[in-house]
């Protein structure tokens, strides 16, 4: 009974999440004049180069793994 109540409570979240995922991954033709949203800052893959530069250096110096997002030269003695 509790499980059913929990399911009912979560159902809107689950269905809403599924709808969002379905919406995000739908493949539609995008005309050049339909790219206004894609041009905005928050839609860039790297939305803030200063933050990404800081994060790359921070986690490189604190973890054993690095890379993935791009290839760029430059090293430091922090690891």
């Amino acid at each position, binding site marked *: 009974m509790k499980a059913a109540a929990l399911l009912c409570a979560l159902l809107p979240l689950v269905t809403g999440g599924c709808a*969002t995922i379905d*919406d*995000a*991954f*739908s*493949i*539609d033709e*995008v005309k*050049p*004049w*339909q*790219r*206004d*949203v*894609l*041009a*905005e*800052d*928050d*839609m*860039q*893959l*790297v*939305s*803030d*180069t*200063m*933050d*990404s*530069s*800081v994060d*790359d*250096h*921070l*986690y*490189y*110096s*604190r*973890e*054993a*793994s*690095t*890379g*993935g*997002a*791009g*290839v*760029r*030269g*430059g*090293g*430091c*003695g*922090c*690891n």
Partner: protein
Amino acid sequence: MAATDTAGGALSRRLALAACSLLGAGGAGGVPAPAQAAGVPFAGSDDDAWSVDGSWLAYTESDDRVAVRKTLVDLQRENDAHTIGVQLVHDTMSGASPTGALADDSGQVTYTGASGGQGFAVGEDEGDGTRALFDDTRVQAGLAVESELDRALSVNYGAVVSQESDHDSFGGNVGLTRRSSDGVTTLDAGIAATFDGIYRSERDDTPEPLGDVADASSFEQGERSTVDALLGFGRVLNRRTVVQANLGLGVSSGYHSDPYKVISVVDDRQRVIAALHDSRPDQRVRATLFGKMVHRLKDSERSVNLSYRLYGDDWGVVSHTFVARYRLPLGERLFLEPHLRLYRQGAADFHLPFLAADERGEAVLPADGHASADYRLDGLTGTTLGIKAGWRIGARTDLRLRLERLEQRFDDTADGTLSATLVQTSVRYRF
């Protein structure tokens, strides 16, 4: 290899519209400016638009460990066909860094100062040799160029040089981006080479791997060369979603040990009787699989930015990194952006908390000659929670403030946790 950001801006934005330039490029960042539609530049002109982005941050670890103050300046000039960026970085680093040694009160073991420090004996810092004082400055300069060769093809290339008291580095990268005729798909290929010189500050040497710190031989400066290659695929799925997938491979050869790290030798009565210098393989092969999605929620100004990275190398390290950002606009000029990063890595094959001693008091050395107590090679779980606020002051200027809290938990390291706070302020001006 520490990454440095490269050119991005009007050209990058157009490439991003086509399907996102993946290599050596980034978006302009910051608060959304009005009229930034396709082909519509900021600041009213597409001819030689300039921007300068300055950032200042304080990174402070708890328990008086590492403190970093960083200043970054990124100057960019961009027009229809080219983006040229110059980035300068200045870091000051100080604190007491873990050496890898276990706590011991015998005072028998001599250690070496961490990056930028001087050699000293136990008792001059934390009293037990587990941490070494250091104080260093790093400067870095980078140049990045991105040029559109024709409507379908662009090239990016750059160079970076970095210098501190115990490490020199220089590198270069080149990449190609090919866009589909309909502008929704992008293929990227890039390669970077980095050359590092590693040595102990004020000694210009490296210690003998697994040599006893009390009488280890001194070797010449360590050298390491690294080549990284990456293939990328980008796709605009619909009017509100962009995805990216990258496959990366890196090979490095040369000196990989940390000249300041040590590993304790412990006898059968649990006494620390010696410390040996860090010893790592002279080659490392890394591979990454990276995916990202940016999506604007339906009928909303809110967006999510999700990424995942799978990492593995031939040292036995496998890691998973998940990053989520949620952009929440507050009116025309403000936004908030909560940030969550989850990280998990397995330990390197040769990571050990200490080496055991035999009945004669001699360290039992690993068969392959590799051992490190560096906590960064231990298994660890990391969590970062942060929030960023952005404020567009006018058409040309925006401010960003970022606060982050980092927590790390180690599987097998004496100092089992690390926490740190990051405060960053950035200002961008376009002219």
